[in-house]
């Protein structure tokens, strides 16, 4: 492949950076030159500049314009934002759907992941087999294939409505029902609890058995041990998983796209934020509008993350004062 050769070969120090020779001042057996670091960083710096920083600036600019990719962008000031926030019911629908999804799917997924991790920990033999098997759905989770399977399973006459019908709950097909379609997506996400499960399991295994012994000596039962030992010791991992899942869930795309055939239907009920962004930008050619949507998404994720970090001080417990 020819792409490889475009990589700056080690030793070709084109980026010399500020070659200030303050090396003699440094202590230590060797002189530390800075230029090798910049050579190592050349690909990353190029990527950060050309594919991250510049695009961020451009997308911020575009969010104040009307742009259809073919004609020059025309400045419209805050119109995109105003239209989005005050005149576009579909925008708010997508916000509502996405929030509902985040609020339902993330806690469900984490609870299931923690439950599975606890279950796996209590298994002696076969733990690694089950761990891999429970992880399998997550591996395929983001793929088109799974979304197609999901659509068939939750459709009219699919397994899920049939099984529910057999026990007296007549839901009909979920995929065509505006009230239920979003929950088909929720369950698809929850089904892939493997990644947080593995992280929880690793966290559980790091809790010292001494703590449980001490608690047992003090007369704590299983539940009490869970509440007083497991939960606080695991809280950094819970926090980590929570932040990660939350950031990802705001950006859910493929399942919604596949289940609705790309339409976000029925009746916009699976029109998630990023699906609407795609629809505005790439289908309807309102790139400026889509850029504005992307910036509000960034702000929303930033705000929620900040909020989680703030509240974490009161419930995340670090055994060693330094954190991690």
């Amino acid at each position, binding site marked *: 492949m020819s792409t490889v050769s475009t990589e700056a070969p080690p030793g070709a120090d084109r980026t010399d950076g500020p070659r200030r020779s303050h090396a003699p001042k440094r202590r230590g057996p060797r002189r530390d030159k800075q230029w090798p670091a910049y050579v190592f960083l050349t690909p990353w710096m190029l990527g950060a500049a050309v594919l991250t920083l510049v695009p961020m600036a451009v997308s911020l600019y575009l969010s104040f314009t009307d742009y259809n990719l073919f004609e020059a962008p025309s400045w419209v000031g805050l119109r995109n934002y105003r239209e989005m926030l005050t005149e576009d019911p579909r925008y708010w629908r997508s916000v509502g759907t996405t929030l509902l999804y985040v609020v339902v799917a993330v806690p469900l997924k984490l609870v299931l992941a923690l439950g599975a991790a606890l279950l796996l920990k209590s298994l002696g033999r076969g733990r690694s087999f089950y761990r891999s098997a429970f992880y399998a759905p997550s591996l395929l989770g983001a793929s088109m294939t799974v979304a*197609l399977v999901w659509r068939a399973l939750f459709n009219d006459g699919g397994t899920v409505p049939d099984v529910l019908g057999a026990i007296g709950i007549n839901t009909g097909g979920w995929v065509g029902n505006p009230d239920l379609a979003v929950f088909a997506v929720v369950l698809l996400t929850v089904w892939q609890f493997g990644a947080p499960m593995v992280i929880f399991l690793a966290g559980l295994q790091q809790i010292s058995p001494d703590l449980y012994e001490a608690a047992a000596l003090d007369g704590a039962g299983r539940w009490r041990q869970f509440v007083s030992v497991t939960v606080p010791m695991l809280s950094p991992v819970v926090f980590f998983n929570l932040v990660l899942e939350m950031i990802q869930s705001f950006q859910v795309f493929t399942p919604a796209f596949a289940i609705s055939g790309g339409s976000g239907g029925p009746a916009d009920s699976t029109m998630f934020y990023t699906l609407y962004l795609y629809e505005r930008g790439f289908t309807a050619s309102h790139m400026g509008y889509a850029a504005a949507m992307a910036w509000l998404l960034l702000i929303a994720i930033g705000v929620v993350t900040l909020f989680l970090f703030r509240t974490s001080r009161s419930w995340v417990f670090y055994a060693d004062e330094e954190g991690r």
Partner: protein
Amino acid sequence: MNLAVKRWAPHTLALVGLLVLLYPLVWLLATSLKPADQVVTSLDLWPSHLEWSNYTTALEGVSGVTVTRLLGNTLLIAGGAVLGNVLSCSLAAYAFARLRFRMSRVMFAFMVATLMLPHHVVLIPQYIIFNQLGLVDSYWPLILPKFLATEAFFVFLIVQFMRGLPRELEESARIDGCGPFRTYWSITLPLTRPALITTAIFTFIWTWNDFFTQMIYLFSPESFTITLALRSFVDQSSTSAYGPMFAMSVISVLPIVLFFFVFQRYLVQGMATTGLKG
């Protein structure tokens, strides 16, 4: 008696959980082998007889492009992405983990911050750039960014791993006269193998599964990946082609399943130690 219950309860629970979790995948496999009439009318999980012709139909591919070609395309993209990520992310990570330079704190903070950046913020300008360069509907937009260490996840992962390595070997290499490149290449990189393998596996799987980027950048059927082909296959065919459609689905995830069986040990370890997502 009570003890036996205590002992077996978790295993039973795990088994039941396993059945529910794997049902969709079993269903996928079963449906891919069902004859057309059984797909629509029957609720049986198992096919009445194995309809291998579903697979022959699927192998013909979409719009005259065979599945072999589609798999080859996908492999090319995934392979390029793996090579790019391993190379560029390890280079950057070495600088962050082991070398001293001005701005290192600022740059590192920026790198970590991009972990949270939704892809959509840079998506449209990136698209415009590649469009201006005439590279839309080629593999460049999918592969080139990987050679520029744009996936901060992996840079971060490798940094964390390298920081945990003992410095002694590198220092003695330097005293023996190795420059930073030599040290990186022949001392640090081999020691970093587990993190590099994790990077490679996840890059492969994510690229293989990716749909969004591929959909945006690729138009012509000859350049399609298996995922894109699967989607147009769905659009073209009616419910009667369920069998072939799911046969193609099976083919499309087969490489990942194989990958999983071969590398699952590394995969789960890597994720547990770094908190990577799957």
